Structures are given as C-alpha cells and as structure tokens.
C-alpha cells in the first residue's frame, strides 16, 4: 500500500514536470516559426497586465478579443498577468530572451533597460500609416518611448496622474474646514480633523512606492522646482543633499509628526486605504488616477457623491509652480525584436487597435486617464472621474520621482519615506538617496 502510494505520487510529479517542460518547448517553437508562412495562420503572442475586473481592464481585453475575432488568420495567444507580478514576469522572460511578440511596458526605467538590452524594435511604421494619430497625443506622451531620434518604441494607452488630492466634502462641511490651498491651511485642517478623531489623510504605504509617488513627487516639486529635480536625477549641478530637497523631506516629516496619516499606514495597502477613505473614516487622500478606477468599480454612487478632487496645496516660498500634478505617460504596448515578417505586420495592427483613436476614447470612457486628445461622453463615466478628467486636462504635469530615478535609488527613497515615518531624519534619507543615485548614474 505505502510503496504503491509513493510511486503514484512520484509519477504524478513527473507528469507535472514533463507537462511543464512540454508547454514551454511548444511556446518557443511557435515564436521561431513566426517569420515564415505569410499566407498561412500567423501566430502572435501578447502579454499585458489588464487582468483585473475593473472597467479599463475589461475594455482593453475586449479590444484584444475583438481583434482576434476580426483577424481569423491570426492565432492570438493573449496572456493577462496580474499587475503585482507583471514587472517581475517580464524581466524574467527578458533575461532569458523569451519575450512574447507584443507586451505591455511601463514608461520609465524598465522599458529603457529593455531597449538598451536590444530586445525592442520601433513601432514608428504605425505613425507613418496613420498620419494624424501621433499628433493627437498630448505633449510629452512619447518622451519615455523615444529612445532614438524620430523613432517611437511604444504609444501610451494611459496617463499616470499620481497626486490628485481627493477629499470628502461632507466631512469638510461638517467640521467647517476650508479645502486647503496652502500648506498652512492643510496643517490647520489636519489639526481640526485630528481633534475630532477623523483621520486627516488616508495612506496605504505597505508597498512603499505609494508615499513617494503620490505625495513626495508633487510636494518636492513645489519646493524645489522641476528644473532642480531633473538636474539632481542626472547628477548635473544638483544633489539630493541640497537644502531644498532636505526641506521638501522636512515637509513630509511635518505631515508625519502632526499625525496626518492614520496609525499603521505602513502596514496597509493602497486599496485598503481607499476603502478607509471612501467609507468616511478619513477626510482626504492623496492618490493617483488609479483610485478613480478602483472607486468606480467598488464604491457606491452614494459614497462617491461626497468626494471631490483638487490639486495639492502650495508651499510658501516654493520654487516650483503651484497647482501641479505629478504624472506622465503611462504604459503602452512594445514590440519584440524577434518578431518579423507577417507576424510583425499583424503585431503592428494589433498595437494600433489597442492604442488608436477609438481605443483611446474607449479607455478614457472606462474611467481611466489617457494621454490622447479625445472627448468623452459624460453620461458614460462616473461623476468623480469626469471631475478629475477635467481637472487634469487643465493642470500642468510634473515628473514622478521613480520614473527618473534608477531602480536602486527609487527603492532607497521609497524605504526612506517609511524610515521617516518611523523616526529617521530628513538629512539622513537625503544622503542615502544621493549616494544611491550617484552610484547608478556614474557606474
């Protein structure tokens, strides 16, 4: 009995292992055959991270499904990978040179590294086929994807606006607080809400990029100005140990010290913080446009009608422009260097289907910001999103920190903000960030 059972377990494991081997072998074979056989079925693989249940993910998946239906000669293998593990999955297959034909890339260091490793090819052909398409993108849309002059390697199908100030109008009215436009007003609001046992600002910083991406980016830009940040990121004539950056971190510490965030903000995630905020436990939340998408999917219209959006308050004597939002072009679809011939033609067609004018409008109407000049139908989107869409349209965009920092330095500042929240001094964090960025700029 026992040996038999053991044997059957071993056999089962062997089968699983062999099955796994077989699958990856099959995939490899399919992509090498792509180049030949133009009249026959074209095999095309696409990886993206629109795996969720939210409207935007459904919209993009719908576009891909439609493409598969309209092009019966294309055998499409579409993989939706959950966003949390997407970067790692992509890096892993990139390291093994086994990238799919088309894949979603984030703007910033990851796509730049893929380009440097020679794994991408430009999609400029699309822009030549559809002349007016490229011009309708908002300024700066292609900045992260122009690795070479006059060549684009991807087209953003989203826009990241990372520092919108969400606030609960009912709570502001109840305690008679003015929606803060300056730092002093913000501090006054924090005090009033704390006195009434309401969390002033909800923050879910367990994944430590949140505080950096949503709060520090805009806060620091208001203090230092964009020019200084770009210089410091390039380590040309500015350093993160400069007094203006230490001052910016000081403002963040001031928020922490005045108990602006709820207890244990470092151990709950962003979604939990969104829920906490939308249930009326917190008066404000500084978060990105993704919160619009999440709230549209999960909160009731009753809860949403109390929520309004604005920009973060200005800093007295700050060098940066006031009333800005940190953000930039979102991710887009990129094309693998190994895809050639008929597969490449089909791939370019699919990329256009996902990032062309109709797709951009559809994505914008799925409560998600785009970098494309399009008009949306107010009746199709949530009221909160419509407010935010118009807010972002008329607001200047400033850089997000981790889009310009090296992966190493981004990790340092992310953890550094958590350290400030547990008592570290701004000076020490500024010093660590400077060291990390200097190390990666001058290897």
């Amino acid at each position, binding site marked *: 009995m026992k040996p038999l059972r053991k044997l059957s377990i*071993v056999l089962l494991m*062997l089968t699983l*292992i062999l099955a796994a081997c077989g699958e990856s072998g099959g995939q490899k074979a399919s992509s090498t055959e792509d180049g030949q056989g133009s009249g026959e079925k074209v095999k095309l693989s696409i990886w993206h991270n629109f795996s969720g249940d939210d409207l935007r993910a459904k919209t993009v998946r719908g576009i891909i499904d439609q493409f598969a239906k309209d092009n019966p000669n294309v055998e499409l293998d579409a993989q939706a990978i959950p966003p949390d593990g997407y*970067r*790692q999955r992509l*890096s*892993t297959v*990139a*390291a093994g040179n086994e990238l799919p034909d088309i894949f979603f890339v984030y703007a910033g260091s990851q796509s730049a*590294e*893929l380009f*440097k*490793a020679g*794994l991408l090819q430009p999609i400029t052909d699309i822009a030549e086929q559809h002349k007016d398409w490229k011009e309708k993108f908002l300024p700066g849309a292609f900045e992260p994807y122009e690795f070479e002059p006059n060549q684009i390697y991807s087209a953003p199908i989203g826009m990241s606006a990372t520092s919108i100030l969400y606030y609960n109008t009912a709570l502001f009215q109840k305690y008679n607080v003015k929606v803060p436009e300056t730092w002093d007003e913000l501090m006054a609001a924090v005090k009033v809400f704390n006195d009434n046992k309401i969390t002033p600002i909800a923050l879910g*910083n*367990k*994944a*430590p990029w949140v505080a950096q991406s949503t709060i520090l980016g805009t806060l620091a830009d208001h203090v230092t100005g964009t020019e200084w940040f770009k210089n410091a990121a390039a380590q040309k004539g500015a350093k993160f140990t400069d007094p203006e950056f230490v001052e910016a971190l000081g403002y963040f510490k001031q928020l922490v010290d005045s108990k602006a965030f*709820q*207890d*244990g*903000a*470092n*151990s*709950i995630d962003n979604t*939990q913080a969104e829920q*906490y905020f939308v249930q009326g*436990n917190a008066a404000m939340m500084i978060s990105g446009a993704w919160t619009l998408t999440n709230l549209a999917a999960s909160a009731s219209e009753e809860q949403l009608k109390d929520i309004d959006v604005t920009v973060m308050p200005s800093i007295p004597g700050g060098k940066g422009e006031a009333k800005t939002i940190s953000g930039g072009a979102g991710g887009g679809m990129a094309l693998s260097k190994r895809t050639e011939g008929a597969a490449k033609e089909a791939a370019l067609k699919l990329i256009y289907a996902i990032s062309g004018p109709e797709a951009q409008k559809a994505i914008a109407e799925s409560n998600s910001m785009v970098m494309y000049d399009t008009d949306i139908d107010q009746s199709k989107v949530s009221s909160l999103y419509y407010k935010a869409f118009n807010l972002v349209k008329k607001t200047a965009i400033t850089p997000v920190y981790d889009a310009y920092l090296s*992966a*190493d330095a981004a*990790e340092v500042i992310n*953890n*550094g903000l*958590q*350290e400030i*929240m*547990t008592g*570290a001094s701004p000076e020490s964090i500024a010093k660590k960030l400077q060291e990390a960025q200097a190390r990666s700029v001058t290897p």
Partner: protein
Amino acid sequence: MSTALRSKGFIALALLPALILFLIFVIVPIFWSAYYGFFEWKGLGSAKFIGFGNYNEIIHDRIFWNALLNNLLLVASAIVGQIPVALLLALVLRRNTLFSKFIRSAVFMPMVLSTVVVGLIWGYIYHPQFGLANFVLEAVGLESWTRAWLSEPHINMLAITVPINWSNIGPYMVIYIAALQNIPSEIGDAAAIDGAKGWRKLISVTLPMIWSTVVVTLVLCISGSLKAFDHVIVMTNGGPAHSTELLATYMYNNTFHVYRYGYGSAVSTVIMLVSAILIAVNYAVTRRRNA
C-alpha cells in the same frame, strides 16, 4: 547475478530520474548562482566580473545583518514555539479517539491553507484600524496594548512569528504522533513494571525512543525558518523600511525589484552557507546529547 545485486542495480536505476532532476534543478543552480554572485549584472545585457565585490558589499550592508538577525529570531521562535508545542499536543492527542482526532484536524488545518491565505488572514487580524487583535485587546480593557502590529519596528517581527508558528505546528505534531505510535507497547509495559511514569517516563523512555525524529524535525525547523519568505512577503513585504526583511525577501527584492541579479545571487549563496553552518551545529549538538 544474485538477487541482492540485481535489486541494487534496480534501486540505482529507479533513483536515476529523481537524481537527474535533483542535479539539474537543485545542485547545478546552487553553483551557478554562486558563480553569478561574482558579477555585476542587471539581468539584461552584459555582466561585469567584479570578483568578491558583491560578497564584500553584503558583509558591510546593515540591512543584510538585520535580515540575518530576523531569520535567527525566526529560528529561535520556531524551536521554542513549534517543537515543544507540537510534542505536547502529540503526547496529549496520540490516542485515536474521536475527540483527539477532531483536535488534531483543527491543529493541522492552517497547514492546509495556502501561506498566502494565512498571510492575508493575519494581515487583517493585525489591521491597525479594524483588526481583530486590537479589537480583542480593547474589549478586555487593554487599550494601552493596542498598536499597529505590522508597522512598528521591534514589534512587527515578533508579530510575524505568531502566524508562522501557528501554521507550522500541525505537521510536526503529525510526525510526532507517528513516532509515538511506533514505540513498541512492550517498552511501555516494561517502564510501567519498573515504576516509571509521568515526567520520568517521558524523559527517560519516550523522548530517547523518538530522539531521531526530534532531530529531523529540528533540521526541518531550522531550514524552514531560514528560507521563510511567503508569509512575510504577503504580510509586510519586508517593510516598513526593511524592518521585517528576511534573507530570502532581501534576496528577492534585490534581484527582482532593484534588478541586481548578481548581488541577489551572492545573497542566496550566503543564505545557503548560513543554513549549512546552522544545520551542522544542530547535528553536532544533538549527536553529543544522544551519545
């Protein structure tokens, strides 16, 4: 050909597939990873040979030492919190009555849950605003004890040991019950005739009889605690500010978040060395006591 030889040959042949898999997927990667540890490599593009640079950096990295300390804390908590509790439960529940079968299943239950589920459940139990832990403390009048369990440095690592111990006691209990049931009943009778009962019997008869099992569980315990990863990734992701970083999460973050594959490989090699040393120490200690 004698049957003994033939069966030896058959054993070797039967072991071969498993051995080959083991070699390819365990032994060879260990050496590969030690080799990658000598390079500065981002995972993409070309690698640069830097000799012992990565290993040198590890030794001087405060976060690495903190992670090692956290791992040792896990080892200590596992040895103190899992082995004795599992042994005690096994002694109490070794009879096959319906009641003890029920309790046994209850203790084993967390093991059936995926560690991700365990991590999520305990993440909610420890939730700073509406977690069960704080709620219970408030209900019994211990408001001053409530805290943000997973984000306060110094406390969060201890908080994490609880679910890890909770979910690991079950299998050790089952192993001990099996060992206890394998003790021949004559030995128990003989001990009874000699007048040994209670503690005396446990220490002089039962424990020595299952000592080899205890040694095995100790090894499992130590190696399990050194490669601990999943609970922490789900509950805190090594944060805040690296305060709950373990060797494995430190390696993972460096490799897959910061894209320092060479450095991550070096860290994993160090993890293997540390584990080997600890397990060697464990063998030395338990063998001497056995003799």
